């Protein structure tokens, strides 16, 4: 490369780095304010005013949050629910995504569109019938099952994995079938290892979504000890004022498991298993 191209390339990289850092700054600010507000002194206040640098940092908001009798139990509940839902989706949504992506069978498109179109109906409409079904008919009020069961597989995840898996080379699957693998074998032995990045992404998305979900768990739980962390945080709002400090402390603590999940899964996001298997 000529000297000029080298300089241009370096300038380009520098500019892109600058742009990225700027964007990072903008994106991360809200998170920073949330965390910094959790160290502010002062109790129940009427308005929320984050500061750049906290004047007298204190752990008092954390103490207030943990003083709630069930705050740790809330964490446990959220972990169970988000964890179970992520687990079931990993197993079943991946199978369905694969089927829609790579297998041919009668009704494939029709079924897929049926699933997809129900996602497009606003949730308000199905709220009451679902509530009647799960609470009244099935009698599952205030249980983990009620919070988990409508989400065992989500169409969004099936769609995601369908898209991801559709670009996997079919040649490998044919090779597997020729070798005598059953369909399930092809799936577990060939597809899954190749889909780890997609599965990891789905896992983190699902976990985060159901960690943050508020209204459904709020609706179906009736006792304090079954609440999830998000529902519990809502309790810090009083009629005229809110304990913002404790709420931010709780939210910051609530964000930590997800940071952990992200960092443990993120090695799968990177370069997928090199498809060196196709050549030769």
């Amino acid at each position, binding site marked *: 490369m000529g000297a000029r191209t080298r300089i241009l390339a370096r300038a380009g990289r520098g500019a892109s780095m600058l742009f990225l850092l700027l964007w990072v700054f903008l994106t991360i600010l809200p998170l920073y304010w949330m965390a910094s507000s959790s160290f502010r002194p002062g109790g129940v*206040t009427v*308005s929320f005013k984050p500061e750049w640098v906290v004047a007298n940092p204190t752990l008092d908001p954390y103490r207030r949050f943990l003083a709630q009798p069930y705050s740790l139990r809330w964490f446990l509940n959220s972990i169970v629910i988000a964890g179970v839902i992520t687990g079931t989706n*990993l197993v079943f949504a991946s199978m369905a995504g694969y089927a829609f992506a790579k297998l041919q069978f009668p009704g494939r498109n029709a079924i897929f569109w049926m699933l997809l179109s129900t996602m497009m109906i606003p949730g308000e409409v199905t709220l*009451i019938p679902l509530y*009647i079904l799960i609470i009244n008919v099935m009698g599952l009020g205030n249980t983990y099952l009620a919070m988990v069961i409508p989400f065992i597989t989500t169409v969004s995840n099936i769609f995601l994995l369908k898209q991801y898996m559709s670009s996997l080379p079919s040649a490998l699957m044919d090779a597997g079938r020729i070798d005598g693998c059953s369909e399930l074998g092809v799936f577990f032995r060939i597809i*899954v290892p190749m889909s780890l990045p997609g599965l990891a992404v789905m896992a983190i998305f699902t976990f985060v979504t159901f960690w943050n979900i508020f209204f459904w768990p709020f*609706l179906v*739980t009736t006792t304090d000890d079954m609440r999830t962390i998000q529902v519990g945080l*809502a309790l810090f709002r009083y009629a*005229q004022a809110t304990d913002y400090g404790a709420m931010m402390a709780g939210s910051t603590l609530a964000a930590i498991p997800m940071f952990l999940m992200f960092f443990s899964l993120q090695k799968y996001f990177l370069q997928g298993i090199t498809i060196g298997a196709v050549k030769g």
Partner: protein
Amino acid sequence: MFAKRFLLCSLIAWTAVCGAFARGSGEPAASAAKDTVTIWTYPVVNGYDAELERLKPLLAAKYPNISLDIQILAWADGAKKFDVALNAGNPPDIYFGQPNSKYLDTGLALAVGEYLTAEEIGDYYENVLELCKFEGKVYLLPMYEFLHCFGGNKDQMEKAGIDYVKIQKEGWTWEQFKEYAGKGVYAKPNGDKNYGLVYYTQGAELEAMLALNSGMPQAVLPDGTVMYKNPNFKDVYSFMSDLMKTGIMPKETAGMAAGLRWQWFYEDRTMFMGKGIPYFDKMQQDRNAQIDAGTIKGPKTNFVILPIPHKQGEKAYSVGGAEGYMLFRQKKAQGIEHYRNAAKIAYFLTSGTASKSAIELCLLPVTKSGAREFEGKDFLSPWNKEATKALASIVYEKKVISPELAVQEAQFKNSGWMPAGQGVIAGELTPDAAYAKVVEAADRIFKK
């Protein structure tokens, strides 16, 4: 191998799912003469959960066969949760809130008054009970009567030479208000602006208050007349527009969050504020105490409760209503005895010693037993005691309208005078244009 890993994964998933059959605690013991009453309520006052704990043993002593299943909802979305449960046929027995005809319309709201003894019902003050009636029957047992008025900064008023005692006694007209509030518009030494009136306007409460005090006490009358179509409503918008234009109300009013008006009051930056409720007096006292103790920094301010300004020549009213416990049945009826029990509980929670919550909210007890128990004990500052009683006595009793009309009234507000008012505050609509929108909305929604 990977198959093993996934089999393991699904095994774990299913074990977890089976374990998920675990139920939460709080299942009531079922026994012959025993009854369980479910209560959904809110943090009515700071520490209401502790208060309920205090009342539980007293209740258990009085009614040993009734056990309680209490759920405290969050203000955020609590109403939506109740709405879903109600419309699914599964509401709690007792629910805390305001009477609303949409509850009646579901057919699941019970006239709680009919399940009480004459002595119990007689304990409530008649004028408050009137606010709880539909078609002559009592549907809500009030815990307190809320009072919405205006509020003022005592020290700023005194400095400006405004006699708040006189205003509290005699009321004030819109012109007088403009004059006094105008005295509150100046720049402070540190550069901050001081305002005449800071009001949270997103909920259209200002328009409603002003209309109430200019001869149009409610949007729609039971016979279908739309009061807000009256040309006098244009004057409401003109008044609001004047307040914005003369700088009495800050130009940021349109996008202001509810807590912000409070913040400015704390920071001693406004002469008047709205809406003002008696409880703000206590909040202010608590805050001043914290400032004295050194835990917060800031100017000390004192809250004065003031009547809503009334239009020259019109009668003055306060905004008020009852909040308390309502009785519901589930889709599957449960027998009169059960509802009598629930009513008894609701009565206990709103009278006698339970009136403590009302006192803490700086509101007057609504029962004679409550008044006796808390005679002379209230948290109001001396300059607000008489005024609160006086203002409570001029609360307007809304004439009840049919459920169909109530829905239209809500639509009229949401798509008519509320957005029009927002437009006036934002400076985007002239009072005439705003009024025209109101008329257009009324014609569209209330076509006979």
